[in-house]
């Protein structure tokens, strides 16, 4: 199966979505330029994208096509040059930097390709970082983080340092860290690219099982075609634009299951 089968690419997928209240992410005409004058680089060229709640959207495309730039803008870590960005009902373009920091703290979870765990903290302490940022007391934060790690199958690694964990285990700690404060938007940047096939599959299963909720949206930037199967939709980017948006295998399965139960 090819995830980006044009036959399954909706002409206007956003049109099928319900009103804006059902959208976790709404991006309109977003452009992003780096540099000035002759050396200006256009990373995004008028991107439109909607992500409804309860969806796992994958952003795919070749290196340099603007995936990371787009996801950085959606996550509120980068300013667009032009366009509209509404995330979880917040207008990020109009938002001050200070409010954006609080917005990220309260609403966004991050999973990075390089994990970005703090090497001096244990797994439980690393997972507790967002709660500490939110002002929790250390003991309570570590306890809550330990529960999440337990759910992710790392109950016996709570006191381990990142250097004592395998790549897959580190990524699970990163997922725990991204989810511990129950964000409504989870942004994953190449979460499986540093992992072998088995660990990549486990990681995506965990993200899908725990993160994909009716009141939450998940955006995964990836090159890894092995994990396309976990997507509800797959947005394919090329040269700073979204070329196509395909219904992913997961949504296809869900639709066919619904159809089957309907016929029954």
């Amino acid at each position: 199966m090819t995830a980006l089968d044009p036959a399954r690419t909706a002409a206007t997928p956003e049109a099928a979505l319900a009103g804006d209240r059902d959208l976790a992410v709404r991006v309109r005409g977003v452009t992003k330029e780096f540099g000035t004058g002759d050396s200006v680089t256009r990373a995004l060229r008028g991107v439109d994208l909607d992500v409804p709640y309860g969806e796992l959207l994958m952003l795919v495309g070749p290196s340099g096509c603007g995936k990371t730039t787009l996801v950085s803008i959606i996550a509120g870590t980068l300013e667009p040059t032009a366009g509209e960005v509404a995330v979880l009902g917040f207008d990020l373009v109009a938002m001050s930097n200070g409010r954006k920091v609080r917005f990220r703290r309260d609403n966004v979870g991050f999973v990075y390709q390089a994990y970005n765990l703090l090497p001096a903290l244990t797994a439980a302490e690393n997972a507790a970082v967002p709660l500490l940022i939110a002002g929790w007391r250390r003991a309570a934060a570590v306890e809550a983080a330990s529960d999440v790690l337990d759910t992710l199958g790392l109950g016996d690694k709570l006191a381990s340092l990142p250097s004592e964990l395998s790549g897959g285990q580190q990524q699970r700690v990163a997922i725990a860290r991204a989810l511990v404060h129950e964000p409504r938007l989870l942004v994953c940047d190449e979460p499986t690219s540093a992992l072998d096939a088995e660990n990549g599959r486990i990681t995506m299963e965990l993200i899908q099982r725990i993160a994909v909720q009716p009141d939450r949206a998940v955006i995964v930037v990836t090159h890894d075609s092995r994990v396309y199967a976990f997507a509800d939709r797959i947005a394919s980017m090329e040269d700073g634009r979204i070329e196509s948006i395909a219904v992913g295998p997961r949504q296809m399965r869900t639709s066919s299951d619904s159809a089957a139960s309907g016929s029954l």
Partner: protein
Amino acid sequence: MMWIAWKMLIGNRVKYLGIVFGVVFAALLIAQQSSIFCGLMSLTISQIRDTEGPDIWVMDRSVQYVDDIKPLADTELFRVKSVPGVEWAVRFYKGLGRARIQEGTYQQMILLGLDDATLVGAPAGVFMGSIADLRKPDAVIMDDAGYKRTWPGEPYRLGRTFEMNDRRAVLVGLTKASRTFQSFPICYPRYSQAVLFAPPERKVLSFVLADPAPGVDPEEVCRRIEERTGLQALTRSQFVWKTIRYYLQKTGIPVNFGITVFLGFLVGTAIAGQTFYLFTVENIRQFGALKAMGTSNWTILWMVLAQALQVGVVGYGVGVGLAALFGQAVKGGLRLSFFMPWQVLAITAAAVFVIVLLASLLSIRKVLVVDPAIVFRS
């Protein structure tokens, strides 16, 4: 979040120790050199400090410090005594004499001639013999360091004799005394004896030591003495600071020590700053991740400052601790003066604070401008 900053800091042991080393180096050098400087300064005033009893020192107007002797006429004593508010006044001789030891060697000595009648200014630390024995003919009391220098390796023994200016001197007592700047033995005879030990001069009175009447301000008495006699009169404290000021202004000592202290400051700042900056650069992705996760710039700023402060406190503690240990070690053996007053600790603390502040400035800039989107770049 400060806890995370602390864990990040000590998590990288090599870098952490490198930064601490820079601060320790600076604190040690600043505290140690400043203490040696203070020790030297305390040597310059040791004879004022050790001369117990009088609160007022009267001298020639042109005297600039305690070793700058401009002899007065003996009659000046009576003029000082006649000033209202002066309770009592006595003569005091201070000069150098050359002693010929029985073994045939010569030794330069500091002569402190005490008033014959009252022995005012006698040392307080006599541990062998007694001050009263100074009333015996040719009697002198010597400081213990001077004894060891004059008769090295020999046990303390009273009754030893030596010659000064062809006059016999008999050792009747030994005392503890603060070391002097010249490090010569200190010899305490009576005033009448001291002037015979010294090379002959027309005027021999070095100082008049006086005390104010009860309830009279010593500074007011000094003012009256100066007004009525034309001499210079200083309280003990004023004379101490006048002497210190002279050494600060007229000798190269502060400059020499200042250069070393400044170098310690510079090198400490360079080591700590460079290592701290490298530490920050190494952790820049972590800081970026924290910013992406919603840590404000203020919190990041405080985290870096907390790290710098932690390094400063540890480096300061170890640095001044080592300096104090050094001082303790040289106290007995080496003839190195070492005096660490609280001001040295305060100055070192201030210097260390500036060092860690400077060291963290580059790092602060680095983390404040880091784009949280950096974490999305592999």
